């Protein structure tokens, strides 16, 4: 095995092009577990922590560009206001020690159906920026997850950043686990209001082979809100609308029974999470609209 420590992104990309078998390592919170337990013995590790540009973020023209290597703790501290949904998800990851090292880039690299950032990336309409010696391309979050722990990266590509809307619109993330800290999600749900587009984003985690958008639920709710003129004059939502939204989210899942929960439980729990997070987000939206008026 070799340990490769590029100092710049171009250097890292040329290494990855020459050595597609080299495994990138950022926070190491997924990679090291596999190495410690001998589940993986890659030909080389490609350490990304020496590359300054991956650990930076910037905000411009209504978009936050979050470097793939920004640890969760910094995301929570520095971007809690600009990326509320992602910060909420980051707060539920592991423990302080894990959040001090773990990154959104690593969550995407691992592409676990249970990864906490995925529902938020899907709901907010985030895009994933990936680079190789051939150039840079941008992948919509919904095109990124291809299967259980499989993503759209080519063997010579690295994730460089994630782009998310820099918005004041309410976002929510909610996760079911058997305790408050250090649990992998039994199921999870992300919600984002996009008032300027008259649209709602919603996505599930841990309830299908990949994280995925809840399209039917999104379309239903976006239609209801727009048809009733609720974006402009946000009245309280009718209970039947919230319920239907929850049902459609549950219908859009394909959960399995496993040690953490049954499929039926996951479906039910997601309908509840959907309804509740919608209630919270809408309440926040109404409060915001009132204070503007």
């Amino acid at each position: 095995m070799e340990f490769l420590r590029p100092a710049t992104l171009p250097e890292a990309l040329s290494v990855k092009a020459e050595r597609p078998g080299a495994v990138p390592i950022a926070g190491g919170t997924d990679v090291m577990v596999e190495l410690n337990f001998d589940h993986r013995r890659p030909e080389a590790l490609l350490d990304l922590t020496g590359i300054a540009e991956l650990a930076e973020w910037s905000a411009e023209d209504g978009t936050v560009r979050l470097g793939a290597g920004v640890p969760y703790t910094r995301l929570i501290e520095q971007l809690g206001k600009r990326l509320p949904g992602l910060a909420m998800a980051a707060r539920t990851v592991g423990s302080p020690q894990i959040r001090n090292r773990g990154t959104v880039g690593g969550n995407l690299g691992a592409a676990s159906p249970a990864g906490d950032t995925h529902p938020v990336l899907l709901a907010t309409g985030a895009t994933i920026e990936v680079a190789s010696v051939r150039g840079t391309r941008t992948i919509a979050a919904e095109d990124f997850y291809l299967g259980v722990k499989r993503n759209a990266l080519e063997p010579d590509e690295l994730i460089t950043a994630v782009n998310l809307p820099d918005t004041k619109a309410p976002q929510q993330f909610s996760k079911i686990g058997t305790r408050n800290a250090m649990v992998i999600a039994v199921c999870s749900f992300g919600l984002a209001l996009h008032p300027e587009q008259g649209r709602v984003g919603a996505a599930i985690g841990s309830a299908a082979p990949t994280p995925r958008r809840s399209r039917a639920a999104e379309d239903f709710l976006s239609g209801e809100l727009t048809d009733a003129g609720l974006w402009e004059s946000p009245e309280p939502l009718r209970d039947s609308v919230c319920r239907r939204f929850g049902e459609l989210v549950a219908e859009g899942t394909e959960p399995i029974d496993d040690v953490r929960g049954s499929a039926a439980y996951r479906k039910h729990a997601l309908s509840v999470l959907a309804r509740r997070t919608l209630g919270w987000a809408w309440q926040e939206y109404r409060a915001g609209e009132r204070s503007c008026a």
Partner: protein
Amino acid sequence: MRVNMTVNGEQRQADDVWEGESLLYVLRERLGLPGSKNACEQGECGSCTVYLDAVPVCACLVAAGQAQGREVRTVEGLADGDRLDPVQQSFVDAGAVQCGFCTPGLVVAAHDLLDRVPEPSDEEIREALAGNLCRCTGYEKILDAVKLAATRGADA
């Protein structure tokens, strides 16, 4: 490979390090610093917690090569000679140490918390220590120890 780093203020060098080795292994087996404990090797128990560039991390999840040129502070580096750090002394005084296996990790995590938040609430203590498992104490004494250390910090 060879790894150079600053450990507890001293320049240290480890040779013949396997590329997939963890920082924890280097500290314990190559540099003779057995304070950080190895219990799970998967980030679950926190008994290997050390500061890496002043940030508490699980040493079992840091690849040795990632510590090259960086600064590591272990539980051994908290005491001032024979004088225990106030957090360590409070663990002893509050009876928060039984078998002691979890103690080094908890002490580092608590030390970091009190550095950032000198007077933490119970919730803040619980959240800060959520990544550290103890099989003996039932955690109450550990909470007492952190609160005692906070009071002593305020007195100091």
